[in-house]
């Protein structure tokens, strides 16, 4: 029937048609016996975790991969970090889900397990041959200016996106959208997400997405009229990507202004030196941003106002003082910046000019990047690069060290710092998976080498390591949650109605299993 060609290391290289199926079975079993068992634990089930799982599975097909997730559902920022009006980007979820659907025995998801809180990290290390950290970067950077921590109505943009995406841990947050003037500090896509969602007030398209009904209602009732986007750098240095800029500048019924038109004065020579993407960014600004005009700003549209080369230096409080004596934000003091070339890095750097201006604003969202936190006591963290020191995904004992921590790997934002989207994460995970494969081939995970370590526990050891009444959520449980979300969504004419209370999630899982 078949003809099997096998090379010296007994790997299949091809088939044609004369050896019978018994022979194939024989070769298959030789192949199986020779492979040592390999238990891999991946912490985090966002794109980095799932891509790493898929890529390891492809290189080591018999690896037993356990993916642990803090939340009750997988997909990380694809579920909670992509804005609900970007459903095309959210389709990546289907690609990631295939990883769990197609290999139910080799790649297993366990949700609602918080490492260190529910299981000590060292227990995980002791029960698996190798561990991959793929749980991302969570801390948000603060401005570090007076008024920031004392005044009310100062928020993190990412929490807002998490809140309207139904992320459980952001549901207790309250956002005040009752005032006309709102500011967003930051020049990245998350800043534009917040602005765009507020500008899409009353949008039927937004209503039909997976945005939670609570947050959609809140946005609809918002009184925000002027949205100020403030950033320390100039139009050539922004981190917005062109897709997002184009989208926001083309929204209907929105006036797009620039506060200081001189910040768009850039010489032809400088533009010609720009890389392709930056050139296109600049063209978009030049084409769409008009100097602020009071009369036009009163035409009934909402106003989007870009402030380049401005750094907030102080937040000031005033009217609307709370009952508890706390003050609410009312004004922001901005310092004008100029760009100089940093001698050390040869990069452009914004420095204060000593000139100030004040804008009125009653709510402020910060979106100026991430700070890392050291999540696991035994794992080093480099706060400068906001990542875990590693080489090609293999964790180092400390930054600039040459020594590796055996069996410990890192993928995604934790590996290269908190930036980069799907294509980058895919390549980033591929590199880590290749390192794991290389170490596996070199027999580094042979249990006998590690005395005192019983790595055979793997997936099954997780339940025994947890408290007896701890509710774990497997992939089938998640699918029950999802189908309930789809059902509730259908009733309301939208894609999904996310369930935002943990006990409700538990009830859904329990009721459909009985």
């Amino acid at each position, binding site marked *: *029937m*078949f003809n*099997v060609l096998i090379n010296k290391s007994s*790997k*299949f*290289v*091809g*088939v*044609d*048609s004369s050896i019978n*199926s018994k022979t*194939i*079975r024989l070769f*298959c079993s030789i192949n199986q016996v020779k492979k040592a068992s390999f238990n891999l634990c991946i912490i985090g089930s966002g794109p980095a975790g799932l891509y790493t799982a898929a890529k390891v599975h*492809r290189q080591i*097909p018999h690896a037993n991969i356990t993916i642990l997730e803090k939340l009750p559902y997988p997909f990380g920022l694809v579920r909670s970090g992509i804005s609900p009006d*970007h459903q*095309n*980007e959210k*389709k*990546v979820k*289907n*690609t*990631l889900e295939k990883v769990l659907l197609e290999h139910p025995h080799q790649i297993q998801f366990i949700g609602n397990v918080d490492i260190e809180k529910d299981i000590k990290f060292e227990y995980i290390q002791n029960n698996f041959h190798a561990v991959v950290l793929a749980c991302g970067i969570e801390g948000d950077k603060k401005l570090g200016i007076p008024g920031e921590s004392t005044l009310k109505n100062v928020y993190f943009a990412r929490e807002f996106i998490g809140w309207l995406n139904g992320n459980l841990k952001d549901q207790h947050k309250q956002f005040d959208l009752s005032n006309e003037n709102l500011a967003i500090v930051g020049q*990245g*896509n*998350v800043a534009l997400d917040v602005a765009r969602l507020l500008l899409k007030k009353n949008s039927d398209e937004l209503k039909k997405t997976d945005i939670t009904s609570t947050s959609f209602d809140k946005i609809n009732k918002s009184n925000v009229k002027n949205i100020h986007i403030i950033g320390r750098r100039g139009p050539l240095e922004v*981190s917005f*990507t*062109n*897709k997002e800029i*184009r989208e926001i500048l083309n929204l209907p019924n929105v006036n797009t202004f620039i506060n200081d038109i001189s910040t768009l004065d850039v010489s032809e020579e400088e533009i010609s030196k720009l890389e*392709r*993407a930056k050139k*296109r960014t600049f063209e978009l600004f030049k084409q769409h941003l008009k100097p602020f005009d009071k009369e036009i700003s009163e035409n009934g549209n909402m106003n989007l106002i870009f402030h380049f080369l401005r750094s907030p230096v102080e937040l000031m409080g005033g009217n609307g003082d709370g009952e508890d004596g706390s003050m609410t934000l009312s004004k922001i003091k901005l310092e004008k910046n100029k760009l100089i070339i940093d001698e050390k890095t040869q990069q452009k750097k914004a420095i204060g000019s000593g000139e100030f201006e004040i804008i009125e604003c009653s709510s402020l969202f910060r979106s100026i990047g991430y700070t890392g936190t050291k999540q696991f006591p035994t794992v080093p963290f480099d706060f400068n690069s906001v990542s875990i020191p590693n*080489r*090609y995904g293999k964790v180092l004992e400390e930054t600039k060290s040459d020594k590796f921590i055996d069996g410990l790997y890192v993928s995604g934002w934790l590996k*290269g710092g*908190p*930036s*980069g*989207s*799907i*294509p*980058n994460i*895919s*390549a*980033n995970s*591929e*590199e880590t998976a290749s390192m794991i494969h290389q170490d596996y081939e070199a027999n580094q995970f042979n249990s006998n080498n590690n005395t005192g370590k019983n790595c055979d526990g793997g997936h099954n050891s997780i339940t025994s390591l947890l408290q007896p009444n701890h509710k774990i959520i497997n992939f089938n449980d998640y699918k029950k949650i999802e189908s309930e979300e789809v059902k509730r969504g259908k009733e309301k004419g939208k894609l999904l109605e996310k369930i935002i209370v943990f006990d409700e999630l538990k009830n859904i899982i329990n009721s459909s299993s009985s």
Partner: protein
Amino acid sequence: MSQVFKQVCFNNIKRFNSTLCNSSFVNNKNKFISDGIIYRQFSSSNNDDKVTFTFINKDGSKTKVTEEVGKNILEAAHDNDVDLEGACECSCACSTCHVYLEPKIYNILPEPTDEENDMLDLAFQLKENSRLGCQIKLTKELEGMEVTLPSASRNMTVDGYKPPKH
């Protein structure tokens, strides 16, 4: 039972076919190899609505495919087990289906739309002849073209590559 083993074998072949470069013989699902090129053949009586072209895989091997006019390059890759990702299901939102085209082919195609260009800005190893596979529909004009996949063996740390901001 033998069905299962066939599947096992097939999976192995799928994994190894990219490394098969010498003249060889895989006879499975209308596929055969000659002179280092993997051929895919589809039984068709009418060749007017088909176009044949070649993928140059990440490892440099070639896969020759025959596909229906009207499909896009990404769909053609998926139909033929060519390792081109396409995470967002052809909705021009992720740039993981980035490919290089020959200049003569690049020039006869309509210009990329603003939306495609915006995604190309984020693609890995962007070149003058870069396009997104999902945005290029197959036409008879593309007969015989070569589509090159960006190399997978990029070492980010060594190249000093910095991903664009999120």
